[in-house]
């Protein structure tokens, strides 16, 4: 158990170290405001990353999530604009749509034996295209319920806000942890990641599990879309381009292997926070040009991954 959790410990250690460095340079980084922001601003990312973690542990990948978030926003905004439905009803509708969308991709992956990379790439085109077809313009949402959700926060000492969105993310991570580590479904996910043929021989219901995994990812992408629409009070088909790559990066930084079969949900949370920390650090620094921003993000990503590898090697050989 402890050996298996090493990547997780390494991730946590590196994150804390990084935070310490940031704090030494900018003491304001330890304010509750920054901590609250870290949770709120990365809520949508954390939620998709929960779905992505499950997919990646099963040995798959889901490139469609960024587009699904954008689609969700547009879907909600357009329905709220066109009908008098309560947002909660629209949310339920949306989650049904994205879950079925994910399940359909899972079904294709299983039934047609096609690689997830390609199926979800097509799904990525499709979801964004569907968003465009609903509206090419950004659609504002002005439902009273949205204001309620935005204003739902707990003011921490120091004016930091612990928002509903942040809490939804933490709850998603917690639910994801339970699902992954405490249910038979979760073990089946690891089993698939360990080897599909073997898992099949051991009696794992491969088809059902695959469909469920992508349905779950679709569901989380939908939930993330809801959170994102609350975050921005709008739906915009061009939103969240490339978020799938951020989510993958967060999952990997969190110590999950892209080859599948190993990883921790909690690590993903740390990965998301790490990405957020990098972002915050760059804004605090404020001296980087557009291009140096990209280079520094890349360099920091590399550093985290190398540090993690280094730490693991040290511990294993020790």
């Amino acid at each position, binding site marked *: 158990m402890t050996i298996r959790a090493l990547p997780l410990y390494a991730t946590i250690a590196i994150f804390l170290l990084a935070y310490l460095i940031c704090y030494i340079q*900018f003491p*304001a980084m330890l*304010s509750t*405001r*920054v901590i609250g*922001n870290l949770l*709120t*601003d*990365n809520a*949508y*990312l954390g939620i998709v990353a929960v779905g992505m973690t499950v997919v990646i542990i099963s040995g798959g990948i889901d490139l469609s999530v960024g587009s699904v978030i954008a689609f969700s926003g547009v879907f909600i905004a357009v329905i709220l604009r066109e009908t008098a439905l309560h947002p909660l009803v629209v949310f339920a509708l949306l989650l049904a749509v994205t879950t079925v969308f994910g399940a359909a991709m899972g079904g294709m992956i299983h039934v047609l034996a096609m690689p997830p990379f390609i199926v979800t790439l097509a799904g990525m085109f499709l979801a964004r295209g569907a968003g*465009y077809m609903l509206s*090419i*313009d*950004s*659609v*504002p949402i002005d439902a009273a319920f949205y204001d309620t959700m*935005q204003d739902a926060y707990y003011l921490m000492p120091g004016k930091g806000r612990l928002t509903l969105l942040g809490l939804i993310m933490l709850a998603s991570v917690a639910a994801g942890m339970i699902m992954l580590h405490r249910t038979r479904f979760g073990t089946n996910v690891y089993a698939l990641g360990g080897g599909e043929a073997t898992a099949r021989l051991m009696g794992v219901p491969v088809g059902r599990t695959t469909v469920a995994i992508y349905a779950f990812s679709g569901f989380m992408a939908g939930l993330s879309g809801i959170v*994102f629409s609350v*975050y*921005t*009070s*709008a*739906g*915009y*088909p*061009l*939103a*969240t*381009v*490339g978020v799938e790559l951020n989510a993958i990066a967060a999952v990997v930084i969190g110590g999950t292997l892209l080859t599948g079969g190993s990883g921790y949900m909690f690590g993903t949370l740390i990965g998301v926070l790490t990405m*957020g920390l990098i*972002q*915050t650090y*760059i*804004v*605090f620094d*404020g*001296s*980087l*040009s*557009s*291009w140096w*921003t*990209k280079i520094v993000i890349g360099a920091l990503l590399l550093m985290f991954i190398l540090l993690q590898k280094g730490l693991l090697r040290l511990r294993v050989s020790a």
Partner: protein
Amino acid sequence: QTIGFSQIGSESGWRAAETTVTQQEAERRGIDLRFSDAQQRQENQIAAIRSFIAQGVDGILVAPVVATGWDSVLEEAAEAEIPVVLLDRMVDSSPELYLTAVGSDLVHEGRVAGEWLVEAVAGEECRVVELQGTTGSSPAIDRKQGFEEGIASADNIEIVRSQTGDFTRTRGKEVMESFLQAENGGADICALYAHNDDMAVGAIQAIKEAGLKPGEDILVVSIDAVPDIFQALAAGEANATVELTPNMAGPAFDALEAYLADGTMPEKFIQTESKLYTQEDDPQAEYEARKDLGY
């Protein structure tokens, strides 16, 4: 003074010029500018503004990537009593939430281009092809709408093909090539309207390669007034461009400084001029004036 500047990204030469000009302006005024590049993502911009608030800057400049979705973060800034100035694009939040907006009217730009074309063809039949910006982006939507308004009065002008060129030269050229193929080798096209100059520059090359003369066989009108289009104007390969000045920061800093000094409220919308340039406006000189602005 410390001012945070949340820029959309560096997706075009114009955008890069805006960044450069803003930095130059800040330096000239002795302002400590905190720059943040959002890589075309609203979520990054919101996060950046929140970080600016957490840092306690004196003022914030934002070039919003999209019009919607700014309410809550602007409210937070208002609560922290940090004035926010919008650059070059508008938001649809309540005007109380920001100090002022500096920019041009995107619809108006399109209209200027359209009106120029109406005048240029002077009543002759004209089949126009349109290169749109990135699907869904507000300049693409507004400039399309403005142009359509501009030519609405003229029955002789008709948009026959309209595709997205993603604001880039490569796609502008590629899409123009297929327009030329589809429209009888270009013989049936009378004018090109491009949502930005970069696409127009790409399209001009496509027209030349197809053996036609841009500027004569096919009229070219576009928006932004970046240096390269002036070269094309000088060479007679483009006909008109509508200026969008990259110096949005100058008026913005003026307004901020006045407000921070004694609370003077500026106007809610400081509109920059949308000047039309044609081949008659000494394009070579305009090119020289602009080429070092970081476009």
